[in-house]
């Protein structure tokens, strides 16, 4: 298994996040956070700058807390591999308002572009399917990516998108976690705990 991805990651992110409405977006650390910021910074984007392996589970807690809204986790293959057990946890929890899109370049891009497992032996889509995800897809062209845009907002879909390993200039979102959290909650109309008293 070798990486066969050719898609431009920024074009993919821009397509998936177009007309986001009130979509709740959680991004995994590294390039997916930059991709989402480049597509347009917004209060309902929560960017992880660390906590590697945690993006999907942040998405689950959010999806359970906001069952009337849609949650999209946008992450990379390395981040998803580190949290692979969460694919089992999320499937077992049956969070129908949560989807995950993995931008898969088969590399650890932030650390020198070392090959990841998805370019060696591991098929993340098959892993998700085996964990019990009801919908699992792989995209290799932009028409397939376009089709994912709505499905990711309607189904419990685990989508792997084969992207080119080309490194792009970083587009840095805010990295103050407390700020990102506060503006996200305020945008949802959640009052500060101390103001509820």
């Amino acid at each position, binding site marked *: 298994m070798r990486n066969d991805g050719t898609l431009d990651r920024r074009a993919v992110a821009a397509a998936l996040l177009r007309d986001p409405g009130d979509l709740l977006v*959680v991004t995994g650390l590294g390039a997916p956070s930059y991709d989402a910021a480049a597509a347009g910074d917004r209060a309902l984007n929560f960017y*992880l700058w660390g906590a590697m392996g945690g993006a999907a589970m*942040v998405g689950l*807690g959010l999806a359970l807390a906001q069952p009337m809204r849609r949650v999209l986790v946008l992450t990379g293959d390395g981040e998803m591999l580190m949290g692979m*057990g969460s694919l089992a946890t999320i499937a077992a929890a049956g969070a129908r308002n949560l989807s995950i899109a993995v931008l898969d370049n088969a590399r650890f891009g932030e650390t020198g572009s070392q090959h990841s497992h998805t370019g060696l032996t591991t098929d993340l889509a098959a892993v998700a399917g085996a964990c019990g995800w009801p919908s699992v897809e792989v995209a290799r062209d932009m028409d397939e990516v376009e089709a994912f845009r709505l499905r990711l907002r309607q189904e419990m879909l685990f989508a792997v998108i084969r992207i080119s390993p080309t490194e792009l200039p970083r587009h840095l979102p805010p990295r103050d976690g407390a700020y990102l959290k506060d503006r996200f909650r305020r945008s949802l109309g959640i009052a500060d705990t101390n103001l509820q008293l």
Partner: protein
Amino acid sequence: MTTASWQAQVYAALKRARIRQIGYVPDAGHAHLIDAAQADPDMRAVVLTTEEEGIALAAGAWLGGERAALLMQSSGVGNCINMLSLPVNCRMPFLALVTMRGEWAEFNPWQVPMGAATPAVLAATGVHVRRADSPHDVAEIVAASAALAFESTVPVAVLFSQRLIGAKVFEK
């Protein structure tokens, strides 16, 4: 006081603290709490594959306006270290109830190193550590710890001592 009765009081304390999601890695010492959470239509009980998932779950719950707690055993504390940067960095509340192994009449030597390191590891990663030794005040300690976590917005772990939960007995 029986184990079931003090654990029922602890569950009631979690409910009074308006906890709505409970992530857990099973432990015999948490069995009653897990059963109660699963039977409660107003609680989401989420079985985890590893403890750090519960920290990320709680962070997501807080982003969405809900309160979560994590039930785990001391052997899983080491798994949590890097993920604790999430509540610490984002100034989010976090509440973990940790059953202790490796400290009181422990049969299994593999439980001893992580059990001994648990309070220091949690403190080193920015978690406020409380300890419950007696069935008579464990629910009160959980209630006070939940208040600290959710009103002062800090991570808090309550260690349930092995003497409290009872040393695990291995029969030949």
